[in-house]
């Protein structure tokens, strides 16, 4: 059972999604505005936020940024807008995934689960508990799920953290966007390669000294991304 906070202004969609998720056994709270949503964060203490982008008053993007400032709570955007620019802007605001409406409860649940599972350590790496790995200026603690740069702890969104952990587990190995989608997002669909690009961009902004000349997460033109060589 997952505690889901749904921020959606349209009553029909709110009721529909709530009904679908409740039937699948999730505890759902639905609010109509961004302000109410931010209040519910502390009162309801959700495991995940489903966020509509077009809200009256405070926009969904703003809500997303505010949540990201204070917590690493997983955020999934649920929007009727499907243009590339909307998706990329939404993802760059700090969301972990982007679902285009209309979507069935099955899809919504699958995406939510994938985002939540992302925090588990990658299965193909052996983890030494409590001993941070050191990559250049970065300290990665796989068991505590903490990343520090120059000793300062970084606030990473779940998708950013998982991407970093996955890439750094196999330094200098190149992964295609498709592989990253499957491993990190658990999607197997080409449509969402922009998820990877947006997340890499956000991650670079946080860990790189110069995001335009990345040192940690490097682009391999025509293939994908790799971690290092440092």
């Amino acid at each position: 059972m997952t505690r889901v906070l749904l921020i959606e202004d349209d009553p029909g969609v709110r009721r529909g999604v709530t009904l679908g998720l409740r039937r699948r056994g999730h505890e759902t709270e639905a609010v109509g505005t961004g302000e109410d949503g931010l209040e519910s964060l502390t009162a309801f203490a959700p495991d995940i936020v489903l966020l509509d982008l077009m809200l009256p008053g405070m926009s969904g993007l703003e809500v997303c940024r505010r949540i990201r400032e204070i917590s690493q709570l997983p955020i999934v955007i649920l929007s009727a807008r499907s243009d590339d620019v909307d998706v990329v802007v939404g993802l760059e605001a700090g969301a972990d995934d982007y679902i285009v409406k209309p979507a069935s409860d099955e899809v919504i649940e699958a995406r939510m689960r994938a985002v939540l599972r992302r925090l588990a350590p990658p299965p193909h790496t052996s983890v030494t508990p409590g001993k941070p790995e050191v990559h250049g200026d970065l300290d990665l603690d796989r068991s505590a799920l903490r990343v520090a740069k120059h000793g300062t702890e970084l606030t990473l969104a779940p998708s950013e953290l998982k991407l970093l952990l996955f890439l750094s587990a196999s330094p200098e190995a190149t992964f295609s966007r498709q592989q990253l989608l499957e491993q990190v997002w658990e999607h197997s669909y080409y449509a969402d390669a922009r998820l990877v690009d947006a997340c890499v961009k956000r991650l670079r902004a946080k860990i790189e000294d110069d995001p335009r000349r990345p040192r940690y997460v490097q682009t391999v033109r025509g293939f994908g991304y790799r971690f290092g060589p440092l």
Partner: protein
Amino acid sequence: MRRRVVPRGLRTRLVVAFVLVSALSALTTAALTFRQARAAILDRAQDSAVHDLRTQVDSLAPDLPASPEDADLRALVLQLDRANGARGWRTAAAFRGGAPVAVAAPAPALPARLRATGGTARGAVAQRFHHDGTPWLAIALPVTRAEEPSRPSGLVVYASFSLASQSRDVDTLVSAARAGVVPVVILSAVPALLAARRVLRPVRRLRSAAEDMAAGALDTRITVVGDDELADLGRTFNTMAATLQTDAATLRSMEAKARRFAADVSHELRTPLAAMTAVTGVLDADAAAGDLRPETAEALELVADETRRLGRMVEDLMEISRFDAGAAALHLDEIDVGELVGKTLGLRHWQDRVAVDVPTGLRARVDPRRVDVVLANLVGNALRHGGPSVPVRVRAGAVGDALVLTVTDEGPGIPENVLPHVFDRFTKGDASRTRSEGSGLGLAIAAENARLHGGTLTAANAPGGGAVFTLTLPRDPA
């Protein structure tokens, strides 16, 4: 085949025509003047000669006997020759058809025709002829007696003299005319060039304006000067441009509105669809669990199916609107074609129904999402229209710089009348089955995706039956 020798340029043609006209008129004037002057000179020479001869003959003839002998005639001729040395004529006289008697040697040449007509003529007869390369004039003057002027006396006096001096006058006239014509013709080229420039400048302006318009600058106008036909043409051109510009603007705004409408409608449809789609899973689960009465279960299933269909159609409409608005962006990535084909089929659980023939290691720089859409659409169509048990085959290969993907089935193929419209929106392969599974936009979207890549998508029927769709994309191997 003979080539036309008419000059191509308007300017050349105008100048040539102008010069031709002026040359023709100058020549005509010169020729007419020359003819008149020549006739006047010769007639005067002839008249004065006839007059002189008649005066001389009139004063000498009365002394002749009625039937003069050769000696009498010789005396007459001698006197006549002496009388007009200045003109330098040579005379002869004949009586009643006899041979003309002359004194000077050699005897003057007399044209035979003059001798034939001279004997019977009632007045003086003159004839011009050439002798030793110079023009001569011969005169035959029948002599009448003073007492019987109506009856010829049978005596004919001939005189002939050279027209060399008159001919010289005429030659002077010809050279004068020629000297006048040539500079006039040459000089006429100057006003011709000026006139051509005057005419051609507006024409050239009109041409460059028309070229601008053809290039899409519909706000092109030309400045109209004057009130001639060319100015009228310029005004008409401006009116045409204004009308065209207004029409184009109207058309464009209408088109934009229509596109906006399609996009807005699809967008608005999404919200209610989102609510409906979110609960279709609930309906499906309950219907499948058998908790409902059979009719209710069937109704719910129908609603769920139609909702999904509507959702797909709205998706397709949104995609088409994006193409129409030019908002569709290409995200190129280098991918392995075999992997992509496998993924596309695997995602839709088609692996067992489709034969794949893709060389390993074939890479291309494409937008994988868009190629996936095209491929899924083509294979989906083939599986649907080709019939359930018909083999569908996907082949890929590199042809030069292009990646060529073909999807073939062995079904009934595409009807000939549908083939040209197969990529039009809402074209259905089978008119009787208007509510097929697809939205009718799939192939249109596929074609747009191919075009966005700078490639092509074509449809044809295989000779052995079945449809063949060929997707050709630039491969751009990095």
